[in-house]
């Protein structure tokens, strides 16, 4: 089991990194022939950064369109952030300089209870797909797959946190082995842990091929990352430049 999971982790991490890198390269190279920032748009670069930050942190445009989706979506994502920070304890050595930020009551507490936020958010998003007619109509199986995958990961995590505790010291030893390319520590096998880790690996594997790419993709959306200055500066994409000259 230990070997299996170690292998799985290296493979899925490799796929995740390479896959996302390739995707980002593709996004980078995709031309944006027209100036199409969503109005009202900022007229300076700093303004664009500020708007992008609001988009990333607060999901501003989603808030303006549908409040319910925003509420569940934001709860899910923010909870995920908190839970992620809590999980850093498994991959950080106690003598690492950032350790006090992780080994900290508030951070661990917030991360633990954020799981309930994630759960509630995901359930809300799932309910939206099932009960809102026009959303159900456009929902593909992969939309459900993502939600259910995340739900099972969340529930198995909640199980380990609140119901059937696992041997986290051994788990950390195993994780540290993976990071330091070491071996010798067994994975403390338990059903929820195997489900949790297995599905996380699966998620990493399909991430580069899924809708979850909206995470890096957001930064490349021309309607968000462009400055509203077509009159001050003429917008020509790279390929168009070549044609011009």
């Amino acid at each position: 089991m230990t070997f299996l999971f170690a292998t799985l982790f290296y493979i899925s991490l490799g796929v995740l990194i390479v896959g996302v890198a390739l995707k980002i390269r593709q996004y980078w190279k995709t031309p944006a022939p027209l100036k199409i920032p969503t109005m009202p748009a900022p007229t300076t670069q700093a303004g664009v950064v500020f708007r992008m930050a609001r988009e990333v942190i607060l999901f501003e445009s989603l808030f303006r369109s549908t409040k319910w989706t925003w509420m569940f979506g934001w709860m899910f994502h923010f909870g995920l952030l908190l839970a992620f920070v809590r999980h850093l304890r498994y991959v950080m050595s106690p003598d690492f300089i950032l350790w006090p930020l992780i080994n900290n009551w508030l951070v661990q507490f917030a991360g633990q209870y954020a799981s309930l936020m994630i759960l509630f958010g995901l359930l809300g998003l799932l309910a939206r797909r099932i009960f809102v007619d026009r959303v159900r109509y456009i929902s593909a199986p992969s939309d459900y797959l993502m939600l259910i995958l995340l739900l099972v990961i969340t529930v198995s995590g909640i199980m380990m946190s609140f119901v059937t505790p696992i041997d986290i010291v051994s788990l950390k030893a195993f994780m540290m082995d993976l990071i330091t390319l070491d071996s010798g520590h067994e994975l403390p096998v338990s059903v929820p842990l195997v489900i949790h880790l297995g599905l996380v690996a699966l998620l990493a594997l399909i991430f580069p091929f899924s809708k979850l790419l909206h995470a890096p993709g957001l930064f490349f959306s021309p309607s968000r990352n462009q400055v509203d200055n077509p009159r001050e500066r003429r917008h020509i994409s790279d390929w168009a430049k070549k044609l011009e000259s």
Partner: protein
Amino acid sequence: MKPITYTQIEGKSTGYWALLGVLGAMILAGFSASMYMEHHGHHVTGMTNQIVWGMPHIFAVYLIVAASGALNVASIASVFSKKAYKPLAPLSALLSLALLAGGLAVLVLDLGRPDRLIIAMTELNLKSIFAWNQLLYNGFFVIVGIYVWMMLEKKMNKYTRIAGTAAFIWRLILTTGTGSIFGFLVARQAYDAAILAPMFIIMSFSAGLAIYILVLMAAYKWTGRELGDSVLRRLKNLLSVFVSAVLYFVLAYHLTNLYAAEHHSVEAFILLGSNGGGQYSAVFWWLQILLGSVVPLAILFTSLSKQRLMIGIASALVIIGGLAQMYVIIIGGQAFPLEVFPGMEVISSGFMDGVPAAYSASFPEIVLGFGMGFGVALIMVVIGVTVLRFLPQSLADEVVDPHYVAESAEAAA
């Protein structure tokens, strides 16, 4: 009457960001104060083992009481179908949520173990009115939250009345619960009175409305929106009724106590300042009665209240009077020595039996209570009106007043 349009405020001006900055600084200061208290322990506050609830509780209880009162304006519209109040309702509900959040933030941060907030919610002793209050507070957030949703979303408008009625009933129970925190304390001479629950309800009416008037005036002045005299006239008349009602309850409470011999000494303590109650009788007569009730009534009942500034001043004085009343009830009630040995005089005691407990509020306590409490409440209102449509574009007389045409016709005639 024209149809009412609600819009967000723009939230781009320097003044807006300055306001957010000030409120943020208040919250930060309040949080730092609580960290300081947590780190050093509560002995750095004015609190002792006799005065166990100090300044933070005054602000917290006041804000919680005011929260349910702030909902009153919405209730008048939704439950009692007064058309003129309808445009005022969304802000009223938002303010009530915000004030409750502010009050609870203070209360939680003043706990000995705020890190055990989860325990407070998972371990409930249902015989405790405090535990019931927790359920009432959480329920209030849910019910008023739904009420706001019904008001703001057009297709849900038809349920506004039901949600509003539920919220109205809930807020009455909630304030009864808050008053009962003191009313159920049989041991203390100043409490142990059933009248405290209804008195807290009346106090909530005046506190909530006073804060509402100030927030409304500020919001409309700072955003340059029109606020007609008709709205303010109604609100200030209502305020004068509520302030009078509070005075009536205070009178009834003290008269009842004065009739019972066992309460004579506590009455002398609060009303006359005898046996070391000087600071409490001073706060009672000067701040609560004179400055916080008589002066505002004098303004509201006379032509002085034709000026907006005076209405604002009266509202501010009502708030000060309400805080003073909380001070007298909470601190004064604890300072009066417990009658552990009736008929006996305490000569000496290892723990200051028989003498009034000393209390002087410390700086961190006040910063926590005021900064955190009002900071959280007001910042929620400011952000709320920026992101959602709580405020009518205009509250000019011709928009709001159902009798506007008639009146102007009369005036013309």
